[in-house]
């Protein structure tokens, strides 16, 4: 931990600023930080550069992808979009649809619950909050066997919402919504002054109007964060999607792309990489654009 010693020394401004520039002193103050930075930049970006280069490589194999950026072409992108056995466009659309509806639905359900916990006092309120905290401890993932059997039973009676149905999958995700989101939103709702509600109530607004037209607008930042986090976690989900969706055209990107390269040595690696780049670009763009809010949201749950 020698490094940290120096850091704090620097930060406190022990080193007088006006002294002739020498390489040694520059290195001791900030230069070594750049070295660490460069190492970390290489470590964090080389897999990403690798996948980008592989996607631009027209020929498919894993070995062929090792010479970075030796060939540039968009053949792999054309291939991934035109392979009937791997309906990439359908996966992409499914993922957007399923994750989008899940994000909207869970943020709505969570907001309703958080509003009632934050603004109303009723019997069983504390029990309800405790239950939600406890339910949070047990992710849906653990009940996957039961969920699968439940959905196949439902599918025997109502094929539209049972096994192999995207609506069914969305409903399962919504089942996890309350447990994951309510608490985060509850904390944020509490920071909105209750006097605003009261003023509106005196002016004759109904509870629904207060909720939809006033409160929801004031908590917009947390709604954005929660829906984005829910979107990302739904996109990343493999377990439930792989168990509940059977037909290739109904599957999501996580399941489809996994099946595509379940044995990387024999897969069309460039086509996979092209698919990965196409899938990742919008997510990464959104993430970098909203990073400030996301980081805020991630820490909000803990820092009270």
């Amino acid at each position, binding site marked *: 931990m020698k490094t940290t010693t120096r*850091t704090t020394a620097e930060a406190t401004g022990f080193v007088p600023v006006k002294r002739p520039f020498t390489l040694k002193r520059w290195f001791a103050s900030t230069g070594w930080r750049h070295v660490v930075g460069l190492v970390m930049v290489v470590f964090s970006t080389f897999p990403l550069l690798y996948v980008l280069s592989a996607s631009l490589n027209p020929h498919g194999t894993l070995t062929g*992808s090792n010479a970075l950026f030796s060939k540039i072409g968009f053949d792999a992108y054309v291939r991934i979009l035109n392979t009937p056995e791997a309906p990439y466009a359908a996966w992409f659309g499914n993922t957007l649809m399923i994750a989008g509806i899940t994000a909207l639905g869970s943020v709505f359900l969570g907001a309703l619950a958080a509003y009632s916990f934050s603004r109303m006092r009723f019997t069983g309120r504390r029990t309800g909050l405790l239950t939600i905290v406890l339910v949070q401890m047990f992710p849906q993932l653990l009940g996957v066997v039961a969920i699968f059997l439940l959905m196949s039973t439902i599918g025997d009676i109502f094929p539209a919402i049972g096994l192999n149905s995207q609506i069914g999958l969305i409903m399962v995700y919504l089942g996890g919504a309350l447990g994951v989101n309510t608490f985060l939103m509850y904390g944020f709702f509490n920071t909105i002054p209750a006097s605003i509600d009261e003023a509106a109530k005196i002016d004759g607004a109904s*509870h629904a109007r207060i909720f939809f037209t006033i409160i929801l607008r004031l908590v917009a930042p947390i709604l954005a964060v929660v829906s984005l986090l829910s979107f990302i976690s739904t996109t990343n989900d493999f377990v439930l999607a792989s168990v509940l969706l059977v037909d290739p055209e109904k599957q999501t990107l996580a399941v489809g792309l996994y099946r595509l390269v379940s044995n990387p040595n024999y897969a069309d690696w460039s086509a996979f990489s092209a698919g990965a780049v196409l899938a990742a670009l919008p997510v990464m763009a959104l993430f970098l654009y909203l990073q400030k809010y996301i980081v805020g949201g991630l820490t909000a749950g803990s820092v009270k």
Partner: protein
Amino acid sequence: MSIITDEDVANEEKPNRRQRQAARIAEAASAGLKAILVKIILLGLVDAIALYALFVLFAKGQWIVFGLVLAVTLIVNWIYFSPGKLPAKYLTPGVIFLVIFQIFAVGYTAYIGFTNYSTGHNSDKDQAVSALMSSALERVPDSPTYAVTVVDRVGTLSLLVTDPDGDVSIGSNDEPLQRVSDATVEGGKAVAAAGYTSLSFQDVVARTDEITKMAVPYSEDPNDGSLRTPDGRNAYLYLSTLVYDEQAGTMTNTGTGVVYSDTGEGAFTSPDGEAMLPGWRINVGFDNFVRAFTDEGIRGPLVSVTIWTFFFAGISVASTFLLGLFLAIVFNDLRMKGRKFYRVAMILPYAFPAFLSALVWAGMLSESFGFINQVLLGGAQIPWLTNEWLAKFSILLVNLWLGFPYMFLVCTGALQSIPEELQEAATVDGASPWAVFRLIKLPLLLVSVAPLLIASFAFNFNNFNLIYMLTGGGPRDAEASVNVGATDILISMVYKVAFTGQTRDYGLASAFSIIIFILVAVISIISFRKTKALEDLN
């Protein structure tokens, strides 16, 4: 900042009767016509769907579910149409989903853990009997020819049968033939029945596979055989080579003469111990747990997987946190140029979808063709993902790559929120920079970061994607009698036992799930005790 305190609550709590009445009138007066309309339309939709569901459930004779759906629908209508009950109005939608797909799922998991539910045991005894008998069906050599019409009702195919005497009956895979009196008969053959849609020739051709697989029981007694149709026009009687004796509960194979009897283990078993599959689902009590803890082939992997799960989650949190903290300190220097660039470059791994990262790394770490071996190590053949210990190392390395940006962001935020004065005061008092860090900054940092470390531990405890997509849990443990490998964690073991391989053992997988539940519960109780997090919940 006005957070509702307990005092406010106490003051608000008991409005008198007139106040309540006034509130109700105000509430009613303020609700606009549009809002009421929207409410009625939404509830109407819900009720219409519920009504449809009730109708289907009624037709299928699912009485328990029928009762539940009816009760929930009535309660929902009562909540939304009666005045007041505001908390219920806001909580009901989420709670319904929560109860069905999370709380019920937990309970159902517990139930399955006590059954022998698996590939060969997935239905009840009657269905197992009919499945066994229909799998051994052989055409009766002198069977009469039955003229049939294939008909459809809500997606289920049935056969409309005219027997040689001209009597008309109808039946499907699940329902034995029953007389029908109101069928339309043309040229001595029934062609349509009320409530059913007759399939046209094209439909028959399109659904040939489904139709040729049909076996309609001739009567309630499975020993009477079934009707099957090879072409959708004529059907013949098929008899099973198995004879079922319901009284004695035995199956006799008429070909070999072996008698299989129900020994109470969920399958017909011959005297020399050979079980006929499919069997049926029975309650096996603690058998799955006993197997998990005593069967050498399961206990060994279960113990090693549990240890590895804790080890994996612990090391992952520690390594990502230490690297993240180190980087946060390094880049928390205002004099440094280009900090923004480094920051963006370093959070890229976090922004890249996690499941894709694992797949990309799996390709890069491939033994014979991967980038790491071929390019970085000049053609070495290092078994990164197929050697037990290297696979564990690779997983930790990739998880470090995936997780350090998050810890970096969190630690940066926490460091910046520590007031500068503390440090100045300590320096004035003569504390060394290292002491300032260790005694002041680190404790303050840990206060705000500790809950996130616990959350990160919980996340990695169930980090299925990374394990399954990078190594698939492998390399496989050759001594284990279940499909488990060296890098499997508990959740991926549950998934593999339940959903991959030849036999899907739902019962055992659920028993594992329950074991995880208990582990998680114990850890949670301890951490709640320690942090007292639940006490200031209000």
